[in-house]
């Protein structure tokens, strides 16, 4: 038997009081695709960062191709034949593809010889792996799929034999993702070893040979993919049986609450992000918006939430909402009973350095019940926070804790509690379960369904198709600032939606 391409023995790593990796051992056979799956915060990325020399393990050994290897920095990882494609690309945006590939792997003090050599090698790599890119285009001129190729080429240019990909499909359309997996197959056929980090069960089932499951910093199992099932993996990830579908009764859609007509948004750079959206949200119905990130979903949430201006019509219970100038900001929207759980709770939904009780007032800090004369009534606010924390089971239930001290799930519960408890007519909710543990996901989903059953309208934006299919009643697919089509959830499937997400099928609504 050949030595494993990678073997980790007893890796442990703590960040201050938090233990991110606990005594992790794993063997990855050469020429295979090895999946690592786990919930957010399970320690996958930390483990791979240790392998790539970003962090130094507190304890443990790394063996590459049967040799004990020290990896104190990325340079050592590259020398050991390891390449990594990060979730957030590490590219210099205003450099060309060629300059990005050469950066750090130049041949000498002068640039020109390195660049021409790289140009030649790039041509060879493109032919060998069907990884075509235009070497003279700047990174900010090419799409994310292309940027990901540049990252892969960067690793191959450095002669990597082991390629680590961290959540590579998060920014890709389903067809782009399929293409990526074909490239990975090809790389495997050429003898490369690939580690695929993901939280998507389907990708693991489709693409990998072997899969390791991580939970709370520990490796709970390593199994052959062919010998397992999604349900089994989910159970290994969470440590108990999980419901992959949300428990809810069929929707009883009522009158239209929100009517959107020909909604357009042009961003700061002058790019048209929404190109005429028509959409109706009904009482007692959850409308899911599916699509690959960056196709206008964020802008749709933001214009509805009063975070940016637009043109067209948004009618709430028959009243037109201003889309520009006075009365179009988020404060006015809140006054009109639009609540908003934003996509990015860490930079938008919460102020990480504020106490929990300040965060409960965040956005509603002008509310009359929180005022006492010219000043804010902090005592009332703290009592209110305690009540909300109890109702939403936020742990620890301490109003004085800063938002950054809560786990992702508890942070999201604070945001959801603040917004839902206002009893809004319309709830906007973006990526409600991103970076949230499964326990909190179930809780949050239940709250959303409960609000629906009170006859409110809900707009759910998520890049997780699974989440939309299980939580929403209807789904609209967005591509390039337009709605490609609208379906009842039980009359469609992932395949049809996936094609619409890529902009290839479906009637324009």
């Amino acid at each position: 038997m050949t030595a494993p391409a990678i073997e980790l023995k007893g890796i442990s790593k703590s960040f201050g009081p938090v233990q991110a990796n606990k005594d992790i051992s794993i063997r990855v056979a050469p020429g295979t695709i090895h999946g690592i799956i786990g919930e957010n915060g399970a320690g996958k990325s930390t483990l791979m960062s240790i392998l790539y020399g970003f962090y130094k393990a507190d304890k443990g050994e790394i063996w590459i191709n049967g040799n004990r290897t020290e990896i104190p920095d990325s340079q050592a990882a590259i020398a050991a034949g390891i390449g990594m494609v990060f979730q957030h690309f590490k590219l210099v945006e205003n450099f060309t593809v060629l300059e990005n590939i050469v950066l750090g792997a130049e041949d000498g003090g002068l640039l020109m010889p390195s660049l021409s050599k790289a140009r030649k090698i790039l041509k060879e790599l493109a032919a060998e792996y069907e990884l075509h890119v235009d070497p003279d285009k700047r990174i900010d001129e090419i799409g994310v799929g292309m940027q990901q190729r540049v990252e892969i080429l960067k690793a191959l240019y450095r002669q990597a034999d082991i390629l680590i990909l961290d959540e590579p499909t998060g920014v890709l359309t389903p067809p782009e993702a399929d293409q990526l997996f074909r490239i990975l197959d090809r790389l495997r056929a050429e003898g490369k070893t690939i580690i695929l980090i993901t939280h998507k069960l389907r990708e693991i089932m489709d693409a990998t040979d072997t899969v390791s499951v991580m939970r709370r910093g520990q490796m709970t199992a390593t199994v052959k993919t062919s010998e397992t099932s999604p349900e089994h993996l989910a159970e290994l990830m969470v440590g108990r049986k999980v419901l992959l579908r949300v428990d809810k009764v069929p929707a009883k859609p009522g009158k239209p609450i929100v009517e959107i007509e020909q909604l357009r948004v042009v961003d700061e750079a002058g790019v048209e992000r929404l190109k005429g959206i028509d959409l109706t949200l009904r009482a007692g119905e959850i409308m899911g918006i599916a699509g690959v990130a960056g196709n206008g979903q964020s802008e749709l949430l933001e214009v509805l939430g009063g975070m940016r201006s637009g043109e067209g019509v948004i009618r709430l219970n028959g009243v037109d909402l201003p889309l520009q100038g006075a009365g179009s900001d988020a404060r006015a929207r809140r006054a009109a009973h639009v609540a908003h759980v934003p996509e990015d709770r860490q930079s938008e939904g919460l102020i990480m350095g504020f106490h929990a009780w300040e965060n409960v007032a965040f956005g509603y800090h002008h509310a009359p019940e929180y005022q006492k004369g010219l000043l804010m009534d902090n005592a009332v606010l703290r009592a209110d926070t305690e009540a909300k924390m109890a109702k939403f089971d936020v742990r620890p239930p301490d109003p004085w804790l800063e938002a950054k001290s809560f786990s992702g799930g508890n942070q999201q519960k604070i945001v959801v509690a603040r917004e839902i408890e206002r009893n809004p007519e319309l709830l906007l909710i973006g990526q409600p379960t991103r970076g949230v543990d499964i326990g909190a996901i179930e809780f949050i989903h239940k709250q959303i369904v409960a609000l629906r059953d009170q006859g409110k309208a809900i707009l759910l934006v998520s890049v997780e198709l699974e989440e939309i299919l299980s939580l929403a009643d209807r789904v609209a697919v967005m591509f390039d600032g337009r709605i490609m089509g609208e379906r009842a959830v039980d009359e469609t499937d992932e395949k049809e939606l996936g094609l619409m997400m890529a902009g290839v099928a479906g009637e324009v609504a």
Partner: protein
Amino acid sequence: MDFITLIQVLDSTVRLATPLLLACLAGLYSERAGIFDIGLEGKMLMAAFFSAAVASVTGNVWLGLLAGIAASMLLSGLHGLASITFRGNQLISGVAINFLAAGLTVLIAQDWFKQGGRTPSLLTEGRFGPLTFPFADSVRDVPMFGPIYSELLSGHSILVYLAFLAVPATWWILYRTRFGLRLRAVGENPAAVDTAGVSVIGLRFAAVAICGLLCGIAGAYLATALQAGFVKDMTAGRGFIALAALIFAKWRPWQAMGACLLFGLLQAVALRFQNIELGSVTIPVQVMDALPYILTVVILAGFVGKAIPPRSGGEPYVKER
């Protein structure tokens, strides 16, 4: 204005632009690498004092230059320690360095020379003398070309020529060498440099060191070439004008030269004419003094093209999980 006056004003423009240009290029290296530096002023001041002090004591202007560079680089090291090693606020560090230099120079000058915070006036051997070009004297009387060659181009100190040669050199380093590629990359996206296996800290310290070197030359030029000795606060805001020129030039070397020449011209005109009469309107000298700053504000406001700094400028690099 007659031709000779014009030549004289331009000649003084070149002299006054030199310290601005050196400091501006210094800032360019630092800021291109993602380290904001509002401490150019302090580094120049420190270098001005130490170059004058050492030149005055040893009588050797080259030793003075070295001392000036060493002093400036020491402050650069401090800025690097604060903003790279300890990931502190680069702006605050720059402010501190400016005050440190303003205080220390006078303190030490008073202790060493007891002349109220200045160095003794430098004699000829303690200063950088003019470099006379071949035939400068013989062509002096040729119309047009003569004055341009012998007055404007010839007769500056070696540091002036060095400063202007540093412009193409900087362009070449920035765009034609591995170091330049990495330097520009680390100012745009340090994570890209780090994951490519290149030390972000090493690159940034190198950039900060070059910044110190150039500021050192700029300060030495002030005290040992432009003037004869150090006086309190002699940089007089030049570090900030250089910073303004850098923004004006959008962090590019040739444009930096243009901006510094423009600001040098403003200083030369203000120095020579005081209040300027333009027909019925009189432009007071204070307007000329304030003009570089006003122009910078106008540029920053994006009324004349947008100045976009290097993307990671001012941000300490923290490895992302």
